[in-house]
């Protein structure tokens, strides 16, 4: 009984530290912001950072906890962003409260991304390893191109949606006089009212954390991790592989959708090509550098790596080069046996920490 309480403490302590860290960071940043002590560029980055944190945390559910490599996470962000924009903009006259509209947009974004996640997940999760990775990449690109072809407008009769492949243009929407075009194909969403707020970003992070951390510590989360560790053994104890893979994948997609909606409502102009393969990779880098399955690691990696290119602004053109070199060096330092041993000598291991990993 004693042992159990000690073990419970360890995971709950980490979870609580994560929550408290996020809350403190929010309070500090919010105070600094209201005092006008943040640089303009950092203030502008607060909401994107929140979005990327949620992206990283949600991708960690697929990559770190379920153990399947996804290279198309930005696709779900994109679905969430554009469905969220459409929801928020078309409800503009119906719901005057910005906060409520934002909340609805996030929910709509999450739902649409969850639907996309389900549709993608059914074929994708039948594949394994690198094949699964390439197919998620393919789906990410497909989503990007499909959204790139969408023209959506709204008038008193409701939403008008057409596919812009071929020669169709905004004029084919058939909008009335009072109608407005929300998404213009390759030009993306223009004239979006930016209702995203830092507070909403903070709340979204907290909700994502509650969902993922509680899921991981529950029966379902155990099943998901069991699939990662040993699929065949998981089946042998009666765990439904498809069900739990889908659960992780769709939850991950839904959170990415909510993050996308928040992101979309932070900019007055947004194009679908923003959410391409490179964005998926960017988020994957957060997850890997933060540590697979390590939620607070993802939060820190997403924050630092979103600020870093800005902080390196002084290096002008060299900043992405430096970023690339840092990325390679970090991967080498954390994964090369000799370098790892060297670091272990330099930095004494904390008491009670497991060193078996190096054997």
């Amino acid at each position, binding site marked *: 009984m004693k042992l159990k309480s000690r073990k419970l403490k360890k995971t709950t302590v980490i979870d609580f530290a994560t929550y408290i860290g996020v809350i403190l960071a929010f309070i500090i940043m919010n105070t600094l912001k209201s005092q006008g002590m943040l640089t303009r560029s950092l203030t502008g980055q607060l909401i994107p950072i929140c979005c990327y944190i949620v992206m990283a945390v949600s991708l960690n559910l697929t990559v770190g906890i379920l153990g399947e490599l996804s290279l198309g996470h930005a696709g779900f962000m994109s679905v969430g962003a554009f469905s969220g924009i459409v929801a928020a903009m078309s409800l503009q006259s119906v719901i005057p409260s910005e906060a409520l509209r934002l909340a609805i947009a996030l929910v709509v974004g999450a739902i649409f991304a969850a639907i996309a996640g389900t549709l993608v997940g059914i074929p994708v999760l*039948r594949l394994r390893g*690198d094949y699964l990775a*390439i197919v998620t990449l393919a789906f990410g690109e*497909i989503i990007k191109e499909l959204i790139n072809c969408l023209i959506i407008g709204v008038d008193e009769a409701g939403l008008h949606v057409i596919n812009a492949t071929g020669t169709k243009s905004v004029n084919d929407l058939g909008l009335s006089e009072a109608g407005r075009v929300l998404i213009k194909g390759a030009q993306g969403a223009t004239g979006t009212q930016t209702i995203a707020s830092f507070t909403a970003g903070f709340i979204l992070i907290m909700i994502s954390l509650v969902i993922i951390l509680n899921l991981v510590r529950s029966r379902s989360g155990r099943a998901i991790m069991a699939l990662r560790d040993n699929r065949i053994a998981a089946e042998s104890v009666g765990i439904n592989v498809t069900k739990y893979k889908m659960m992780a994948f769709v939850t991950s997609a839904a959170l990415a959708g909510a993050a996308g909606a928040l992101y979309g409502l932070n900019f007055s102009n947004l194009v679908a090509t923003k959410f391409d393969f490179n964005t998926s990779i960017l988020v994957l880098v957060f997850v890997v550098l933060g540590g*697979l399955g390590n939620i607070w690691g993802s939060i820190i990696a997403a924050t630092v790596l979103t600020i870093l290119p800005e902080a390196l602004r002084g290096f002008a053109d060299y900043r*992405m080069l430096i970023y*690339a070199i840092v*990325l390679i060096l970090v991967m080498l330092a954390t994964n*090369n046996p000799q370098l790892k041993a060297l670091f272990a000598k330099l930095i004494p291991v904390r008491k009670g920490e497991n060193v078996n990993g190096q054997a």
Partner: protein
Amino acid sequence: MEFLSYLISGISLGSVYAIIALGYTMVYGIAKMLNFAHGDVIMVGGYISLLSMSSLGLPWPLAVILAMLVCTVLGVVIEGLAYKPLRSAPSLAVLITAIGVSYFLQNAALLLWGASPKAYTPIIAGSVKLFEGQLSISYVSMLTVFMCIVIMIALTLFTGKTRMGKAMRACSEDKAAAQLMGINVNRTISMTFAIGSALAAIAGVLLCSSYTSLMPTTGSMPGIKAFTAAVFGGIGSIPGALLGGVLLGIIESLAKAYISTQLANSIVFAVLIITLLVRPAGLLGKYVPEKV
């Protein structure tokens, strides 16, 4: 006639994909890693050949050879510095490193050669006109298809007949067993990277000759497409890379012509997804179930 010309441009494009895919598939087969930097080696090959022709004034065959040499060295150096230390690391760590290398190459090219697209003069100009000028086939397309076939035959002979080629196949089957048989695994892997990168240089020249422009990100999309082609044909298989590349090129070209320009890539990817669902290891790949 129109169809025929789309088909021919598809085969030509597909041959470029196939040459790139051969590099991908060989590296994957032996190192079991997705080398995302492979596409950027193509771009480097493009720049080197362009500069040696325009600045050094070399004739194109020499420019191609110079590009191949530089890319070969680049490939071996990348492998030695970035991938070799991670031989026993989890595959995700290697993947991220490859992405880092890709960023590095793109941004280094950006600094060296600027972001704006450079005009690339095709290494051979002109075209053959057939059927009273209704169908024109550029010499570049013909050269591309010809090179693809030559490379394919050479690689098949190399992996089948030579000592090094057999060592490569042995390493891709079972590295530990190959080592026990006295094969120098590290050298074999370096050699694979060298060949793959030399092929990337050729692909770079051919790709730029048909697109006639070049910028630091030129390699990434063809890289991803070629990787798709390799998976489509069955990754690890040399004939698979050829088949996958050519089919992908044809599908892309026909989709652009008859369905939609904007959705051409989506159609290519959709075909890949459907193929993998029916044949989980690609067209010519062998599916090995997990042993219990």
